[in-house]
């Protein structure tokens, strides 16, 4: 008997037993409905929810999407009215979750299966979990007058009135980007002030920036990485650039609210996001997965080679409101 054949035979004999064992060990199938508030774009959120439901057909997932800073006021209003609706939040950045955690709004969930994701992506207290790595860099239209290499290139006179940026009032990634650049040595408020003097008008979310640059209304955009990389692969006339001086980054964390109506389904949802299957889905959707053993999507450089600008989270959280107001004043909003 060849070794391969014997191994196959062994597998055939063992598989049914393993399957039976898995069945007896598996908990009762989940049911009920679960509400998700997310900042993922519509088709990505639909795919994520659908993939989860294929594993858990008994769970009905109702969801709504919006920019992180559009979802948060809604959640705040619901909390004020005494009945927050979501079970799960899947939003852009950890600062938002830190704030909610400090208010006791997040449920510590040690039950969540973190799969092979590294521990430093998650809250040490287990209230929120980073699901991927999303960086903010520069997108350029292929017809752009030049290709920027560093952030300062956007101050070039040829980029005047040519740069789009998502509004920090909508996008969590954009808010983190402003806070990160404000802290970055060599850039800081000096750079941000000059940038706002180039006629830049932050508007909408990252999708709107993608549309403005792909359509040629603007030549350059400050944007999260996966949209332009994914659209370029489909033929959009754009290129994503990781500036040499570094990108800002968010982890798109997920968390369960302390007021969740269906914590069991919520735990299963988070476990799915961090599972190999969930991470592979994220990679297929064009995100850099949190799990380093899952291959990054095509079009990304080696993840270790991406230079991420550091962010002092504690300082950023303390200064967040004041800094964003200052930035808003600079762009006249």
């Amino acid at each position, binding site marked *: 008997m060849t070794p391969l054949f014997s191994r196959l035979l062994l597998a055939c004999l063992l598989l049914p037993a393993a399957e039976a064992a898995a069945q007896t060990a598996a908990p009762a199938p989940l049911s009920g409905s679960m509400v998700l508030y997310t900042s993922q774009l519509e088709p990505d959120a639909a795919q994520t929810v659908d993939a989860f439901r294929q594993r858990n057909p008994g769970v009905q997932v109702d969801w709504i999407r919006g920019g992180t800073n559009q979802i948060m006021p809604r959640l705040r209003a619901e909390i004020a009215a005494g*009945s927050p609706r979501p079970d799960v939040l899947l939003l852009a950045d950890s600062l938002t979750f830190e704030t909610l955690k400090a208010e006791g709004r997040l449920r510590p969930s040690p039950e969540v299966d973190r799969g092979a994701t590294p521990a430093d992506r998650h809250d040490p207290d287990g209230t929120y979990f980073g699901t991927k790595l999303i960086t903010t860099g520069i997108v350029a239209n292929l017809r752009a007058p030049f290709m920027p290499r560093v952030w300062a290139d956007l101050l070039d006179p040829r980029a005047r009135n040519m740069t789009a940026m998502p509004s920090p009032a909508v996008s969590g990634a954009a808010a983190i980007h402003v806070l990160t650049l404000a802290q970055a040595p060599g850039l800081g408020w000096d750079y941000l002030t000059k940038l706002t003097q180039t006629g830049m008008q932050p508007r909408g979310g990252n999708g709107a920036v993608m549309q403005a640059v792909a359509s040629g209304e603007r030549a350059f955009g400050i944007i999260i990485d996966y949209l332009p990389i994914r659209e370029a692969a489909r033929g959009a006339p754009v290129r994503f650039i990781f500036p040499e001086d570094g990108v800002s980054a968010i982890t798109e964390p997920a968390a369960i609210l302390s007021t969740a109506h269906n914590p069991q389904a919520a735990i299963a949802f988070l476990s799915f996001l961090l599972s190999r299957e969930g991470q592979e889905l994220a990679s297929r959707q064009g995100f850099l997965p949190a799990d380093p053993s899952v291959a990054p999507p095509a079009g990304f450089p080696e993840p270790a080679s991406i230079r991420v600008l550091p962010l002092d989270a504690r300082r950023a959280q303390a200064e967040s409101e004041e800094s964003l107001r200052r930035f808003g004043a600079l762009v006249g909003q």
Partner: protein
Amino acid sequence: MSASNFFRVRSGFALVWLLLVGAVPLGRLLAEVVWSASPLDDPAIFHAALRSLALAGGVTAIATGLGVALAALLLLRRLPGRRPLLFGAILPLLVPPQVMALAVAQAAGPASPLLLAVGLAPPMGAANPAYGPGAMMLVLGVQSAPLVLLAIAALVRRLPDEAIMAARSLGCTPGGAFRRIAWPLLLPGVVAGAGLTWVAALGNFGVAASLGIPGRWPVLTVLLWQRLGAGGPQALAQAAGLAVVLAGLALPGLLAQIFATRARPLHHGRVFTPLPIRGGAAVAGGIAAYLALVLGLPLLSLAATALVPALGVAPNLDTLTARHFLTALAPGAQTARAITVSFGLSAGAAVVLALASLPVALALRARPVRIAAAIADLPQALPGAVTAVAAILVVLPWGGALYGSIWLIGLAYLTRFHALALRPVAAVAARLDPRLDFAARGMAAGLWWRARAVWLPPLTPALVAGGLVVTLLAVNEVTVSSLLIGPGAVTLGTLVFNLQDAGLAPLAAATSLLALGLVAALMAAATLAGRGLPAGTLPWRP
């Protein structure tokens, strides 16, 4: 049950129903404004109000001009292909505004697949000319022109044919006869159409948001949406204040409609027949070209946007893809859900409203019922945001249970569209001979038999027509639901707007085309179901 007792029950039901859909929400809104006294001296509100007025003025001017011109050519003259042209002239009204706005924005910008295909796309960095007040007025003006046309059409049926023939036999040219006899009698129709247009433009959210937000020209409806979305303890009070300001600005439109109803001519004689026109074929060709421009071009632009793999790619045979349609219809996508939600809500509201219209229309002779009905007419005549904010306030005591659920949207639809369902039924009921009912009762016929034998035969077409109009308008509605959506309760109109707002234009275009298909299917079903209806009950068969 004795007869007088029954009348009391029927009037009682009608009164309670009308108060629920009319006076209660509007009263709650006013109470909120009086109680909370939210300050309205914010300059942003003042500027938005000025923009709203400018928009409504511009739209009314454009729509009235177009509507009168179309009426003069299509209703008063005999043109080759008159029926299909008339049908086409009504259609812009049934294209959802947010879809039209998306189509125009996609057709005009530097990434316009149409312009790219012919190599005429504007240079890099050029602003999209669709983003701004001019394009907003033009889009809404073209879309509202059918309102004016329809308001005139309702009066053309009452033109005294004898008088026009007499004028003609005295040597008057057709134009002269129309100028001296027809147009003075049609004026109330023009005024009514202009009034409707004023309110529609003021209350519009789809175009105002899709073109006004990128163009940095926010009007009141957009400001209200933003303030409500921004949350905070003051949001609702502010929204209520803005809704009342919006209602106040709508007053001229409301007054125009009231004046027009009073001045409506009554005519019982020969039905007016259109007169021939010299060069009719050329005129018909001109109208067909106009319709092809305002209907065909946006449709083509939507298709081109929906079929390219990514924005900025020129459409040709190699690049065409059905990917965005597949994404829109993928399992888990909101599109199917949104279609179900919108269709369920609009059809549900239509059925409830039609059922309620029967007893209400029969009870309209009682004075208190008439007053309550006049108040319940207001939500239809005022901008949609007024209804939405009022609905939130009414369900506030139940807090999160109803807010963000489809039930709240459904309740708002009942208030918003009640008048549309009641109007045709009331018109027929007013002409019912009460002696028939007395006779039936004299023969001891019960409620069920009297409904079957006396009321339903004459009223059924009107009930159906009212329900159809409600379904068609509610299924793509965005002004009310954009303020009320929640998880699992996203309507089709809001979905299209959200997709576009998120920068997913190709997906938004694909979804729009699916929505247009739904409207077309509903129209076909309505045409089949409404073959026996009198002229004018289905809007596209004036």
